[in-house]
C-alpha cells in the first residue's frame, strides 16, 4: 500500500529525469573515479567505481609535472576572454544598429547574418588556415581567436534581445542628449546583462572545449588550449597512464564546472532566455 502510493505522476517524472541525468553524468563520474585510481587498479579485471587504493594526488601530481598544466589553463582563459570580449564589442553595436536604427542596408545585413549562421567554421577553416600560414601567424593567440571575433550567433542573439527593448527608451535617451554611442554604452549595455550572460555561456563553453580549431593552427605546447594540451599529453607522455590523463581532464573541466556551480541561477536564466538548449 505504502509502496503503491509512491507511484504518483510526479515521482515517475522525477525517476525518469534522474535516470536521464545518470546516463549523462556516467562518463564524467567514471572519469572522476579513474582519476583517483592507481594504474594497476585501472587495468585490473574487477570493475569498481570506488577506488580501493586512493591515488588522486599522485595522478594530479603526474599531470601537473608532465604537462605545463598552468600554461594550458592560462592559454584557455586568455583565448576565451579575448574571443568573448571582442565578440561582445563587435556584436552589441552591430545588433543595436540592426534592431533600432533605420538604414538602407539593414535588410541586406539581416540576410548576411542569416547566411553566416548557416556556414560552419569547418567550411572556412582551410582558407583561414592558408591566410594565417602565409602571414606567419600560426601558433599565436591571434590565430586561435581571430576567426571567432565576429560572432553572427552573438549578433543574432543580441538582435532578438534588443528588438524587445522599448523604442521609447531609446527616444528618451536621444532627447536627453545622448549620442548613439552613449545610448549603446549607457542604456543598452546596462540593460542587456541577461543576454550578455547567455552569450557568455555559449561562447566560453564552446571555445574552452574547442579542439578542432586549435588542432589546426597550433602545434606547440606554449600556445595549446587545454583540450589540445590533453591530446598532446595522451599522444606523447601518458601512453597508457589513464589515471594521470583523467586527472588532467579533471583539472581542465573543473573551471567550467566551478563556474556553473557558482552561477547556476544565472546560467539557467540565460539559457531559458535564448530558448535554446545545447
Amino acid at each position, binding site marked *: 500500500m505504502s509502496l503503491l502510493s509512491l507511484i504518483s505522476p510526479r515521482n515517475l517524472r522525477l525517476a525518469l529525469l534522474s535516470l536521464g541525468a545518470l546516463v549523462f553524468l556516467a562518463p564524467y563520474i567514471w572519469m572522476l573515479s579513474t582519476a583517483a585510481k592507481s594504474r594497476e587498479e585501472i587495468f585490473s579485471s574487477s570493475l569498481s567505481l570506488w577506488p580501493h587504493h586512493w591515488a588522486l594526488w599522485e595522478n594530479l601530481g603526474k599531470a601537473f609535472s608532465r604537462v605545463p598544466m598552468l600554461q594550458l589553463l592560462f592559454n584557455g582563459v586568455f583565448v576565451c576572454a579575448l574571443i568573448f570580449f571582442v565578440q561582445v564589442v563587435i556584436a552589441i553595436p552591430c545588433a543595436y544598429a540592426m534592431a533600432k536604427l533605420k538604414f538602407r542596408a539593414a535588410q541586406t545585413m539581416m540576410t548576411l547574418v542569416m547566411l553566416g549562421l548557416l556556414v560552419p567554421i569547418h567550411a572556412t577553416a582551410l582558407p583561414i588556415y592558408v591566410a594565417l600560414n602565409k602571414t606567419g601567424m600560426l601558433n599565436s593567440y591571434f590565430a586561435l581567436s581571430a576567426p571567432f571575433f565576429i560572432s553572427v550567433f552573438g549578433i543574432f542573439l543580441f538582435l532578438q534581445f534588443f528588438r524587445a527593448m*522599448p523604442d*521609447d*527608451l531609446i*527616444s*528618451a*535617451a*536621444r*532627447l*536627453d*542628449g*545622448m*549620442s548613439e554611442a*552613449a545610448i549603446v554604452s549607457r*542604456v543598452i549595455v*546596462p*540593460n542587456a546583462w541577461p543576454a550578455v550572460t547567455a552569450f557568455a555561456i555559449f561562447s566560453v563553453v564552446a571555445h574552452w572545449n574547442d579542439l578542432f580549431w586549435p588542432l589546426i593552427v597550433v602545434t606547440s605546447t606554449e600556445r595549446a588550449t587545454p583540450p589540445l594540451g590533453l591530446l598532446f599529453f595522451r599522444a606523447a607522455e601518458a601512453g597508457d597512464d589513464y589515471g594521470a590523463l583523467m586527472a588532467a581532464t579533471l583539472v581542465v573541466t573543473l573551471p567550467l564546472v566551478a563556474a556553473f556551480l557558482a552561477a547556476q541561477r544565472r546560467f539557467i536564466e540565460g539559457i531559458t532566455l535564448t530558448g535554446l538548449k545545447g
Partner: protein
Amino acid sequence: MSAFSLKNISKSYGPSRILDDITIEAGEGEFIALVGPSGCGKSTLLRIAAGLDHGDDGSVSMGGRDITAEHPADRNVAMVFQSYALYPHLTAAQNIAVPLTMRNLSALERMPFVGRLIPGRAERQVAIRQQVATTAASLRIDHLLDRKPGHMSGGQRQRVALARALVRQPGVFLMDEPLSNLDANLRVHTRAEIVELHRRAGVPTLYVTHDQAEALSMADRVAVMMGGKLLQIDEPSRIYDDPRHIEVAQFIGSPRINVLDAVTSENGAVVLGGNVLVEGVAGPVGTPVQIAIRPERIKLRPAGGGGIPAIVSRLEFLGSEVIVFTRIDGSDGSFTMKAAPQDVAHVAAGMPVTLEVDPGACLVFGKDGLRVPLRTPIKQMAHV
C-alpha cells in the same frame, strides 16, 4: 512670432497618409491639447516635433528658429512618454539627473574614473544634485529618489518621468498621453498638477490625449485630429459650442452629441415631428443635412405638450445627473439627453414624453461634414 510651431507637416508611410498638412502654432507659455481617436497620428506628430521622426513636408520652429533639420538632442525639447521610458537600471535620482549630466558635463567629465580628476566637475555635480532635489521636492517624490523604476508604482513612475522632463528648462514640453496608465482618481488629481506645473514653468506645451474631457479641462486651446487631419484648433468652449466639423462635434462631449439626418424644406427649415428645429439653412430645398444637438440642450416635458413626441427607452443614473435615452415617435431617430435627477424622478422606461430643444441649440452640418452657416438666427422653436 510663436514660441513653438509646426507648419504644414505631412507624412506618409507607403500609400497611407498619416499626417496631412498640419499646422499648429503655440504661443509663449501656451498649453495645447492634441486630441483624437487612436491611430489618428498624434504620436507621430509629437515625434516629428521632437525630431525623433521626420515629416515628408513642413517645418518645425522654436522661438523663430527653424529646427526642422536639428538632431533631437540639440532641440532642447522635453518629452514625457506614455510608457514613461525611465532607464530601468538607474535610480529615480539618476534618471532625473540624466538630461543635466548629458548637457552640463563634457564627455570626459562623464567618464567613470578619469572624470573625477577634471577641475570644476565636483561643483557642477553638486549643482546637478541640487536641481534634482528641487525638482523632486516640487513633485513630492523626494522619498523615491533612491529607488529603481521596477520598485515603483505606475503613478510614482509617472512623476519621475515628469521630473526628468521638468528638471531642465526646455523650449517646449511634449507629453504623449502621460496619464493614460493611471487610475481614474489619480488621473484627475495629476491633471490639475500638470496644469499647475505648466503654469509655473511657462513653457509652451503640446499635450496628447485621446480623452476629450482631459483636453477640454487642461488646455488653453484644443486641437482635434481625425485620420491625419487637423479638423479644428480653438479654445475649449469654442470647440464644444461651435464645432466646425461634424466629427469634432461627435468626438467632443459626453454623452455623445445627438445627430439626425434630415433634408431642408421651404425656407431652409428642418422639421422634425411637426417642429421646426432650425431655419435659414443655406442651399436649395431638399438639401441633405445633419443636425447635431448637445444632450443637455434638450428638455424633457410631459407627453402631449408642444414639442417632439418620443418614448423613453432607458435611463442611466450617474449621481449628479441622469442620462435619458429616448426614441422619437414615428421615426427611427433617437435622442440622448442629460437631466438633473429631481427633474426625471417620475420618468421610467417606456413612458411617452415630449422633447423640447433649446432655441439655437441645433448645429447644422452639410453632407461633407462641414458646418453650414444659417441665414437667420433662431429665436424660438415654433410649432407648425
